Structures are given as structure tokens and as C-alpha cells.
């Protein structure tokens, strides 16, 4: 019984969500057309690939966070967690001499571990997600500095590591493998959110946690699972970021969590949980990336770039609220 109600609810929410997706997609196209006219260089293949490359790390963080936000949670530790996973890749591969595959999997699982700890803090100890993951943000930022000794770690013993992000998929076109991985992850996470029990329970917990628990779902365990699952995306993003710079940079990453969350929200996923989609998140990530790139290509002063991106987020959230009132 529980499954059918859950399914019906998620279907309804998906329908409602699609309006926001249409709005977001329309804005993306508008922004795209605007910059195509504003700059003759915007549409160059190199620049379009550049936009996708720039969207990759934040976009992957946003994909994982979508699941967390749909449960009604939040994860502020993804930006610095990603930096810590990058550093761990450096530790595994350079300091401990693990083979490439083991180091990469280790770093991704480490991201899962960060998510697991978040999940336990929230589910078992009952900390509010904002506080639990804020704490984790500081812990991971600090650990990245401590473990790396504040210096970048270079992948001297595994020079192929940089190919994970940079290897060109199309000879001559410089279409990086990392972007390909991003696209595969979009499909995989869309399938998991839309077609599996993980997605159904995420929506269900986000719409009504108490009712979900009453219907016999082990909400605690599923929340831990979803935070850990989202953590894997943090690990993947960390590996790709380190691969791109062919070094694990222990600083940076600050603010990435907000960019990723912004992408999720622009894409129509509700911060109150229960509603959202991967398609929306992908569009949201692209809006942020296209805006940032377009403003740079047209040489808009940087102080104004933040103002514009901020306004887009405000408008997106406002539209979301309007729609909620109407529904």
C-alpha cells in the first residue's frame, strides 16, 4: 500500500516540477541566445566545451546534493569535502603508492564515508542537517590542510591520473573525458531518482517523514544511505578536480557548495524537500555555468558577475514559491 501512495505522490510532484523545468530550460535558452549575440566568441566550440568543463565539478556535486535536498536535508560539506577527497586521492596514490584504480576508488569511497558520517549525525544523533554538515564543512576543510601539510600534492607516481579529467574523447576536439563522466552520471542519477526505491524513498521522506516512517520504511537507515550515496558524488568530483589540476590543492572549494545548491534550487528542487528532478539540476548547473562564462567572455566586471548570478537565484526561488502557492 505504502509503495503505491508514494509512487502516486512522486508522480504528482514530478508533474508539478516539470513546469519549473520548462521555465528553467526557457531561461537557459534565453541566456544562451543573449550571450551568442553579445559576444562573437561565445558560440565557439572551444568555449562551449569550456562551459561544460567548468560545469563538471559543481554539476556533479549538484547531482548528489539533489537527492539530499529532496529528502528535506541540505549538505554544506560538499565543497570542502570535495577538496578533502582530492587530497585523499593524493595520499593514496602519491604517499601510499596505491595503483591508480585503487586510489581513485578509495577517494570516491572516502566521499561516501564523509556522507555516511553526515547521515549518522543527522539520523542517529538527530542534529539538524544544516548544523551537522556545517560542522563537517569545517572539519573537512581543516583535515584537507592538516593531511596535505597545506601544500599541493602532485601525482608523480601516477601520471595517468590527469587523464581521468583531461583525456580527449574526440581526437582533436579537446572534449575532456571528465565531461563525459558528468554526462554518464546525469543519466545514472536520473535513473536512480526516477526508477528505483532510493528515489521513491527520497521523495517520500522529503514530503512527509513521519508518514513514511509509519508506513514501515526505516527512515533513519535510508537517510544515512542517501547522504552516503551523495557523498560518492563528492568523491568523484574531488577526483576530477584533482585530475584537472594534476594536483590535489588543499585550499579552495569554498563557496562551491553554495553554487551547487544554487544549481539544484534553480532547477526547481524545493529546499523544503519532496520535490525535485535531475533534469532540473542539470539545467540549473548549466544556467550557472553559462551565466558565469558569458559574463566573463563579455568582460563584465567581476563584482557585477556575482550580482547577476545572485539575482538569478532570487528570481528562481521566487518563481518556485509562486508556483507552490498556486498549486
Amino acid at each position, binding site marked *: 500500500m505504502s509503495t503505491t501512495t508514494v509512487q502516486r505522490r512522486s508522480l504528482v510532484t514530478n508533474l508539478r516540477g516539470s513546469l519549473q523545468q520548462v521555465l528553467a530550460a526557457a531561461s537557459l535558452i534565453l541566456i544562451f541566445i543573449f550571450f551568442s549575440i553579445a*559576444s562573437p*566568441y561565445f558560440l*565557439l566550440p*572551444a*568555449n562551449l566545451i*569550456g562551459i561544460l*568543463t*567548468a560545469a563538471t*565539478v559543481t554539476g556533479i556535486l549538484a547531482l548528489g546534493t539533489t537527492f539530499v535536498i529532496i529528502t528535506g536535508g541540505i549538505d554544506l560539506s560538499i565543497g570542502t569535502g570535495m577538496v578533502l577527497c582530492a587530497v585523499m586521492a593524493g595520499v593514496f596514490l602519491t604517499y601510499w603508492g596505491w595503483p591508480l584504480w585503487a586510489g581513485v576508488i578509495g577517494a570516491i569511497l572516502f566521499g561516501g564515508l564523509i556522507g555516511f558520517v553526515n547521515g549518522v549525525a543527522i539520523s542517529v544523533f538527530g542534529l539538524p542537517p544544516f548544523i551537522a554538515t556545517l560542522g563537517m564543512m569545517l572539519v573537512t576543510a*581543516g583535515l584537507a*590542510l*592538516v593531511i596535505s*601539510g*597545506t*601544500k*599541493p600534492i*602532485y601525482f608523480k607516481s601516477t601520471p595517468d591520473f590527469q587523464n581521468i579529467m*583531461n583525456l580527449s574523447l574526440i581526437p582533436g576536439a*579537446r572534449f*575532456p573525458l571528465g565531461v563525459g563522466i558528468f554526462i554518464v552520471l546525469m543519466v545514472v542519477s536520473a535513473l536512480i531518482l526516477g526508477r528505483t526505491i532510493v528515489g521513491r524513498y527520497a521523495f517520500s521522506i522529503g514530503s512527509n517523514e513521519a508518514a513514511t516512517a509509519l508506513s514501515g520504511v526505516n527512515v533513519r537507515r535510508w537517510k544515512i544511505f542517501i547522504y552516503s550515496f551523495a557523498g560518492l558524488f563528492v568523491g568523484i568530483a574531488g577526483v576530477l*578536480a584533482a585530475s*584537472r*589540476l594534476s*594536483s590535489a*590543492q*588543499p*585550499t*579552495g*572549494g*569554498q563557496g562551491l557548495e553554495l553554487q551547487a545548491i544554487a544549481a539544484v534550487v534553480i532547477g526547481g528542487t524545493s529546499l523544503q524537500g519532496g520535490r525535485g528532478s535531475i533534469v532540473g539540476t542539470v539545467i540549473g548547473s548549466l544556467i550557472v555555468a553559462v551565466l*558565469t*562564462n558569458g559574463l*566573463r*567572455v*563579455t*568582460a563584465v566586471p*567581476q*563584482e557585477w558577475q556575482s550580482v547577476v548570478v545572485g539575482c538569478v537565484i532570487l528570481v528562481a526561488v521566487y518563481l518556485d514559491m509562486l508556483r507552490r502557492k498556486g498549486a
Partner: protein
Amino acid sequence: MKKRLIGAAIVITVVAASLAGCAPAGSGSGDGASAAKPYIALISKGFKHQFWQAVKQGAEQAAAEFNVTVTFEGAEEEGNVDQQIQLLQTTLDKHPDALGFAAIDSQAAGPLMDQAKQDGIPVIAFDSGVDSDVPVTTASTDNLAAAAEAAKHMADLIGHEGKIALVIHDQTSITGVQRRDGFVDYMKKNEPNITIVDIQYSGDPLVATDLAKAIITANPDLKGLYGSNEGAAIGIVHAVQELGITGKLTVVGFDSGKDQIDAINSGLMAGAITQNPVGIGYETVKAAVAIINGKTVAKTIDTGFFWYDKTNITDPKIAAVLYQ
């Protein structure tokens, strides 16, 4: 970049050092030591990063030369104002003959600066200095002059004409502003045929990479890019690599680090400006000694900087101030 790269694991060292320092101060043996040898205490913004280690090395070099006792302590993290203030308090309680200080937050250090003044402890500001009238002098890199030097090399390298762009690590910090303005002013004054087409800001290597790529894409006739610190320069280096245009663009950087050193050796980067951290430490102690001996010193002391490129990167004098 160095500002943020500062060590996180120093706390034990620092706490141990300050505790160890506390005890003799209470028993008065600190004063006994200063009677024999002047005692100069240096409080830096950081400690563990190679930049600060080089400052320390310069301070110790001067200590040996002028026969004084020098201690060097720094905050665990450069942002940790509280910890630095506590360090400063503990140090003032020891009544050093002179204090070298690089403030994380000049405002927060204000009351203790006044205390130093009342206690008659001369203060020598170093690195980014202290925004206060207590310090007798400030020993730091003249970032304006250093950036102008970078601009001069850039102009020579691109043949005194064409379009260039800047990636600056920070829009508001003193080093960010000066390393931008020094560069821009030099071009305005001396190079009428060089146009600066864009100035963007980020010291985060990942962000700087995307930013530099956008600048290069939007300006196909761009001849040069200048990055104002390690993070900004790394971004430019990776942007050039990702776009596969090595050699088509003159890249000038700032500070050091493995990426910049590799890029200079491989020819991707034409050269960079390095500060002289050893000189900062040395000049601070030298000024302190002069003040203790009752001599007057200039209000500011330029600790110097070097241009380094493929030709002089292995020069011992340059190699000593570079860090990987």
C-alpha cells in the same frame, strides 16, 4: 595564496613554544638572558608554510650575524586572529627588547600595540605590516614595485604592443590591489601601445582556470596574461594547457610553487616575480637591532623581490627563495 596556504598543524609547536617561553618569563630568567643578549621576538601570520619558514631562516641568519636571540612564532592558520593575539600577549609578557609583528588583523591587535608602546617595546612590522602608528618601521615586499617589474618584463616579451589581460588573486586585499595597480600603472605610464583588455579575480586554481580560459577565448589576439599569485598563475597555466596553445601566449606569474616552476622550465610561462621571504626576516631583525642600539630607521624597508625565468631559476640566490 600563501596567505591561505599556511599550516594547520603548527598548533602543537606554537603552544609548546609559547608555554616553554612562558615559564622563564615568570621566573625572571628571560630578563637575565636579555641582559647578556638582546631578545627579539617575531610574531608572524603563519608558521608552517615554506614562505614563513624562509622568513624565519632570514631572521635566524640576522640573529647569528648581530649576536641577538630571536624567537619566531606564528598562528596555526593565517585566519586565526584569536590565536595570534594570545601569542602576542604571551610574548609581550616576556618583555622582549624588540617585537617583530605581522598582523592578521591590525584592529584586533590595537590594544596590545598600545601596551607595547607603554612598556617601551619597539615594534617592527613585517610582511603585510600593521595598520597602526605604533610600529617604528615596516619591512615588506614593495608589491607595487614588484608588479611594475612584472609589467616591464611582460612589455619586453610581447614587443611593447598588443592586448594583455590580468588574473588577480583578490579584489580587496592589499596584496591583490597593489599587484594589480603596480602592473596597470606601469603599462599606462610607459606602454601606450599595450591595452589591458580584461582584469578578472580569483586565487582559487580551479576557478582561475575557467576564468583564464574565458578571457583567452574572448580575446583571440591576446598576447599576454599576468597572474598575481600562485593560485592565479596555476589557473593560467592549466588554461593554456587545456586549450593546447602553449607558446602562443606570454604568461607572467608571481610567487612560486611547483606548477609555476615546471611551467617556467617547460617554456609555458615566461617568468615570474618572487618575493624575498629570507630578506623579510633578515631586514626585520636588522631593523630591530638598529632600534635597540638607538639608531633611527626609515619608515619603510623594501625587502626586495626577484624576476626569475628559465635563465636564472637554478641560480642559488633565486633557488633559495623559491618553494615547490
